[in-house]
């Protein structure tokens, strides 16, 4: 527990009502979507960068860990206070400061919910593409800190492709600015890119300048069922090789299909072994042609059934199939390990075959679905923790899957980050010199290791 004296300093900085040491709050700010719980000593909800600066200065002189937090919806423990200390809840910084239609940029505070910004920019005909599944509740600060992705990233790229600049409070409590609002800018190191995806270990983001695009005029959604998983995987690489980049290219394997068969509200034939949901967007006239070209490419690859949405309602129905996968996985087994590997797109068929082999060798179900268009697959290792040996098998499966991913030139996390969940596996992907380089940066910027300690790297 923190001394009363320190709690009083925090109260002086942010105001009494924004500091809590109550057990109820310690419980409620102890977790994220990894479901691991670590109680913070105190929950602090600052209003601005100046307050955060004072908090970090105090934390440095007193050596107290500080854990920045948005919605707490991350998948790798990024916001979990593993060493107690201060849970720094940033949701009061929730203003959209401006939407600049002349320069196509928006400036926001980190606590703005992603969907809130998207709605606001779409009202004026603009578009902020990154669309993590959590967009209705996750915050832009969290999206930036983790470099969130989503289905649309096939065509539009991930969060880092939209961050032009930010205001950051450094671990020592200085307020700095990175990048700017111009489309170009090469003065000094690219600190913006360093901060995006740093998982809150190098600074607390207090303002973000985001690039916007014009909102596409129309979109077209298709659902294509294949008689083999290989066919679907090959279709992905063939479409890309055919020089077409759809907005989304989502993929579901046979187990995923079996899970949604009853509830999807769509007729799924028995011989369908894999599905691609393909969406194209842009000018209305071009869409027909793009869609036809995609179907033409996929035609020789064992298509069982094709469905093309002709209205928003039908498109929504197709997306419902995709969205109902995740919640229905419990039918397979009660507990899951959710990995988000990413391989070069041409290697997708090989990766899927390897995962199937691992699944049958270890005799545990592995369900694959996700953003196949950019090689990013959500690999769900379904286990029952109450069955002896299941957890060990899951560990083995994860290691084997990561090994294969890296062998194919991929990465073990496309969009979820490392946090605590993937920290043990870091040496598989990064060599010792690279890790040392990263740690040198961390040590230089955060000499007392107070900002989000225990994340990305295992402690020495």
């Amino acid at each position, binding site marked *: 527990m923190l001394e009363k004296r320190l709690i009083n300093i925090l109260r002086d900085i942010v105001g009494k009502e924004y500091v809590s040491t109550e*057990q109820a709050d310690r*419980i409620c700010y102890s977790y994220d*979507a990894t479901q691991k719980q670590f109680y913070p000593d105190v929950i602090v909800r600052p209003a601005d960068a100046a307050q955060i600066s004072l908090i970090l200065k105090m934390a440095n002189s007193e050596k107290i860990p500080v854990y920045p937090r948005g*919605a*707490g919806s991350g998948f790798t423990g990024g916001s979990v206070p593993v060493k107690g200390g201060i849970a720094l809840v940033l949701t009061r910084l929730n203003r959209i400061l401006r939407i600049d239609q002349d320069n196509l940029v928006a400036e926001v505070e980190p606590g703005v919910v992603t969907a809130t910004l998207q709605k606001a920019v779409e009202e004026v005909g603009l578009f902020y593409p990154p669309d993590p599944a959590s967009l209705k509740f996750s915050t832009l600060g969290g999206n930036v800190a983790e470099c969130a992705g989503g289905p649309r990233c096939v065509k539009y790229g991930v969060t880092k492709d939209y961050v032009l600049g930010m205001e950051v409070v450094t671990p020592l409590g200085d307020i700095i600015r990175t990048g700017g609002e111009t489309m170009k800018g090469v003065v000094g190191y690219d600190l913006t890119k360093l901060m995006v995806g740093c998982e809150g270990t190098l600074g607390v983001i207090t303002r973000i300048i985001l690039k916007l695009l014009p909102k596409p005029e129309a979109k077209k959604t298709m659902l294509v069922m294949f008689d083999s998983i290989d066919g679907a995987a090959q279709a992905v690489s063939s479409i890309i090789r055919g020089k077409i980049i759809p907005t989304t290219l989502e993929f579901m394997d046979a187990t995923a299909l079996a899970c949604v068969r009853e509830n999807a509200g769509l007729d799924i034939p028995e011989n369908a072994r894999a599905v691609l949901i393909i969406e194209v967007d842009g000018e209305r006239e071009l869409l027909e042609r793009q869609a036809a070209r995609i179907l033409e490419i996929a035609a020789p690859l064992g298509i069982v059934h094709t469905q093309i949405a002709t209205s928003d309602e039908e498109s929504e129905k197709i997306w419902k199939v995709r969205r109902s996968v*995740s*919640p229905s996985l419990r039918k397979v087994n009660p507990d899951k390990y959710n990995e988000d590997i990413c391989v070069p797109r041409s290697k997708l068929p090989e990766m899927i075959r390897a995962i199937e082999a691992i699944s049958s060798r270890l005799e545990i179900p592995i369900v694959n679905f996700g953003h196949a268009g950019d090689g990013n697959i959500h690999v769900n290792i379904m286990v029952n923790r109450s069955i002896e040996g299941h957890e060990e098998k899951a560990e083995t499966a994860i290691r084997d899957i990561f090994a294969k991913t890296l062998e194919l030139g991929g990465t073990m996390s496309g969009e979820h980050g490392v946090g605590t969940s993937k920290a043990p596996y870091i040496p598989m992907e990064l060599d010792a010199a690279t890790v040392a380089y990263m740690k040198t940066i961390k040590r230089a910027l955060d000499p007392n290791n107070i900002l989000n300690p225990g994340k990305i790297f295992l402690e020495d």
Partner: protein
Amino acid sequence: MSKHQEIEDYRQQLRECVKCGTCRAHCPVFKQVQSEAVVARGKISLAEALLDNKIDLDQRIISDISQCLACGRCVKNCPNQVPTDEIILALRRRIAQKKGLTLFGRGVSTVLQHPRLMSLLTRLGRAFSWLVFRKVPKGSGLRLRFPSPYISRDRTIPPIAPQAFRQRHPEFIAGEPNKPLVTFFTGCMINYMMPEIGESVLTALKELGMNILIPKDQGCCGLPALCAGDGPGAARLADRNLEALTAHKADYIVTACASCHSGLTKHFRELGPDHAQMAGKVLDIHEFLYQQGLEEKLRSLPRQDNPRPVTYHIPCHLRKDDLKETPRKLLSALPSVRLVDMKHAGACCGLGGTFSVYHYDISKQLGNIKAEGIRDSGAEVVATACPGCIMQLQDTINHAGLPQQVCHVLEMIATDLQNAQKS
């Protein structure tokens, strides 16, 4: 006597919450309060901590658990369908067991369990209302202020009816011999405060030639007692309703109150197979009338020249896909109505049973969202399908100084049916 489950019985369901945070996007209270402890994920964590003895049942937890509108949005949108609504009710029962009911909760539960007491109080209330209530200067002119220490001084509520609905009518009203027998469950608000809605239900049922049963022994649906944490009281009410509503073999049981509908169809199934069977027979009145073909009948009525712009507020307890559209379909079939859209039509009115008593400030914030939608809708009338929502929306309109009227969809239907008969 029947009995609800204990919080311990929900261990497995609690474990099914994967802390994804989806509920943060849907909880109306969380959107106002922004504290993790009030959102479903937080309450579930608190419930787990209680079961694991990591936290005491103190005032803070009691307050967190009271901050729920029982609107069901967290359950509907939860990827794993964790029954947070039931878990919260189980927590409230535990709180009542350990700490006793709050004074207000005890009052609500006692009065609603004793119809004679309720009748006496309403008669007294009416007789003395000129003494204790003050009229709201503007607005509908009929709305009164409520001076109880538990209800905020600036709250407006409807007056008490001179004669309760069920006292006005015989238990059985014969219709056409070959038509179904329909049991009408009135609920307390229609019976004591808004009997005109009950009359409208009768008009619509008679139009279709239904045989109508209004059992005298029916009581409160039990939802208020359940929400207050009075498990035994709620179960007693449910047992009594089971007896009263199934004494005659009616073909259908209908209700015109969205909250009673939720009480009767959802919350008492776990009390036993008889309860579950009865729950399966209960229909929302709009759903019933629609099934019986009233929509076509309404469409065939002579059109009026200048239909009034009317908008529809979706009660939380009628948000299920199949129930959401039915009242709107009936409204749009009315000759006197031009149905207009309203922003935030599906946002909660803010009543949430006893929620608005304990947290009137949050309730009013939710009301402001509704007021904006009502103001911009261009409607003259806000129709809805729940007496509770009617009361709350009228309060919101009174505070916002808006000109709109609030009424039940059935009242609009009855008016048009009666006008058609006259002409």
